């Protein structure tokens, strides 16, 4: 019984070559960033932030930063880390404000983990919300759209 070909029949690469050339040189690229891990326990959220800062410094465009899995926990404004430690949520919010970034939190992942904006709070009859400035809650379609729109979609997880 024949299945699909193991290798794609035509070795097309719709944007890879040009992007590789762009990344090697100084040509700006459009990036999507996906954060899959929460703050503090895993380094992925820090690495994603550092990557975003470095990319912006190099003049690249960040189309969207999408928070999924435990990554949605980056978006709670209720975190209170020790004063001599980095404040991961504020760092994202400030970066978003400075560069007009689109920080999107996946609604399904957020619901599981109790990340709420005012609308979600009302919808689920909860007594509080906790989303931080600069973040917005939306669907997984926003992640797929980033994949379609961006030259590169970069994942940060475990």
């Amino acid at each position: 019984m024949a299945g699909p070909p193991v290798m794609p029949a035509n070795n097309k690469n719709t944007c890879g070559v040009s992007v590789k050339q762009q990344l090697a040189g100084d040509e700006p690229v459009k990036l999507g960033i996906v954060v899959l891990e929460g703050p503090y326990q895993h380094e992925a959220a820090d690495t994603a932030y550092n990557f975003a800062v470095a990319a912006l410094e190099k003049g690249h465009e960040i189309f969207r930063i999408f928070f999924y899995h435990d990554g949605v926990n980056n978006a709670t404004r209720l975190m209170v880390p020790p004063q001599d430690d980095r404040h991961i949520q504020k760092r994202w919010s400030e970066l978003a404000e400075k560069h007009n970034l689109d920080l999107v939190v996946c609604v399904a992942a957020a619901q599981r983990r109790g990340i709420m904006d005012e609308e979600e709070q009302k919808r689920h009859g909860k007594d509080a919300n906790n989303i931080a400035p600069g973040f917005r809650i939306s669907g997984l379609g926003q992640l797929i759209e980033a994949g379609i729109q961006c030259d590169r979609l970069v994942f940060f997880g475990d």
Partner: protein
Amino acid sequence: MSDVKNFLYVNRKAPHGTIYALESLEVVLIGAAFEQDVALAFLDDGVFQLVKGWDTSELGVKNFQPAYTALGDYDISKVYVERESLEERGLTEDDLIEMTYEDEEDDWAEKSSIRIVSREEMAQIMRDADVILSF
């Protein structure tokens, strides 16, 4: 840039222990509505996601394995499983669930979606993908 991109979902983690497998599957199901060219890759502990006969009753979590067999209904016909990852874990293709799709170009004949590929072939599949979603 072409309107349709090659999306490759890379699954590297065991089905239980983290939520990676379940939430990856949720992206695949949502993404199916966007009419892109979609393929799935299973390697490292990710191959355990496709091993037959899950029993999650004592874990207290939902058994979402049936969702994998339903992927053919979402026009997903390319499921690449890395041979070396299977071998390193004492597994063979016979240990895997059946995943099928209906081939539009062959009078809708039902065919297996699963392709066992070498590590080298997997690397080429990743090189050819436009978008890699790594879970």
